[in-house]
């Protein structure tokens, strides 16, 4: 009986492949001669199947409630594309395209700005700074007009999506700047009515 108990407690290790080879052989030999343990093994499989039965779907209202509460961003089409080329220590900027498809939440408009920072080599300790006009917020950072942080850029593409919330009637420019090793480049992106 003790052996049956040990064998039945080994089923999970046997399934997971984490059992020692010698122990696995012992369990298999035991299963061949013990009908009770074979039946137990079958029942465990059936039990797992029953527990895998579907449950009612996640209520949409829960998902919506959570999103409203925390204002989780819904990805929208790229609102604007800014390509900031960082070649070695020399910074250059180019505007390569503008496209937008904002969504609307109450009196606010969502808009996502994608920054592409391409670097020919890895650049450690790059200072990145965003300045926002009145009536514009980064989603999840209400009331903050300036966001600044330091980060390392990888060689190649570094993409930064900035989810913005624009109050109705808000306009102005988002000023993005990148600074490294005493060199600084700045780029301005029009936001608000005139940019829609």
């Amino acid at each position, binding site marked *: 009986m003790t052996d049956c108990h040990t064998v039945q407690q080994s089923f999970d290790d046997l399934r997971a492949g984490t059992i020692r080879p010698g122990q696995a052989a012992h369990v298999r030999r035991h299963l061949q001669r013990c009908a009770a343990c074979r039946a137990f093994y079958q029942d465990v499989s059936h039990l797992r199947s029953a527990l*895998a039965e579907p449950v009612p779907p996640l209520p949409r209202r829960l998902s919506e409630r959570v999103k409203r509460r925390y204002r989780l961003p819904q990805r929208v089409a790229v609102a604007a594309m800014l390509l900031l080329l960082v070649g070695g220590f020399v910074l250059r900027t180019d505007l390569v395209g503008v496209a937008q498809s904002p969504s609307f939440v109450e009196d606010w408009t969502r808009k996502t700005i994608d920054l592409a920072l391409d670097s020919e080599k890895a650049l450690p300790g790059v200072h990145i700074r965003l300045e926002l006009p009145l009536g514009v917020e980064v989603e999840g950072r209400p009331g903050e007009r300036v966001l600044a942080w330091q980060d390392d850029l990888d060689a190649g593409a570094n993409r930064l999506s900035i989810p913005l919330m624009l109050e109705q009637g808000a306009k102005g420019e988002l000023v993005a700047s990148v600074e490294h090793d005493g060199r600084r480049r700045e780029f301005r992106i029009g936001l608000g009515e005139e940019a829609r």
Partner: protein
Amino acid sequence: MSRLIRLWQRLSPAAAFDACVQPHIERLWRLAVRFQGNPSDAEDLMQDLLERAWQRREEIQQLDAPGPWLAKVLYRLHIDRWRRQGVHSQLVNWEELEETSDLMPAVSEEQAVLTAIAASEVLAAVDRLPEAQRAALLLHDGEGYTVEEVATIVDVPVGTVKSRLHRARAGVRHHVAEGTKSPPAACIEMEGPGEKQ
């Protein structure tokens, strides 16, 4: 983690929270429904979980695998609710119960007893298990958490989880085989995560 995500996290706590939690929502929802037994209570449990997780979002975002952490919070919230509902009526020394587990004989039926019955009946038998065993079974056999993860979630040693799993499986077979009408053993087994600490 991609460069995009790292930069995103610096800017948007809500987006980072979403990125951390969203991949686990479906699994947690299944667990909540199984724990609570109905979608309505499961929804309340999920709401509590997400509020708790939001409060501790910075801690979550530092984790390599937030899934077990979230499941642990869900389990604790479930146990809190279960206790508040007054399911248990007698206090039993949990250590004694754990010690006696090794004395429990292996199930002796020589025929599989679950294969011929509907899944709903199997699940009904699962609901008759002591809560600690039921939770181990739902987490491991239902949602696929490893024994080690279950041990972390319910805050007991791995050996205890293995023992609970074995007794839970044997218990389900017993309930089905005997068609017993006795009250759920949850009435006497009130162990929760906090008591092992």
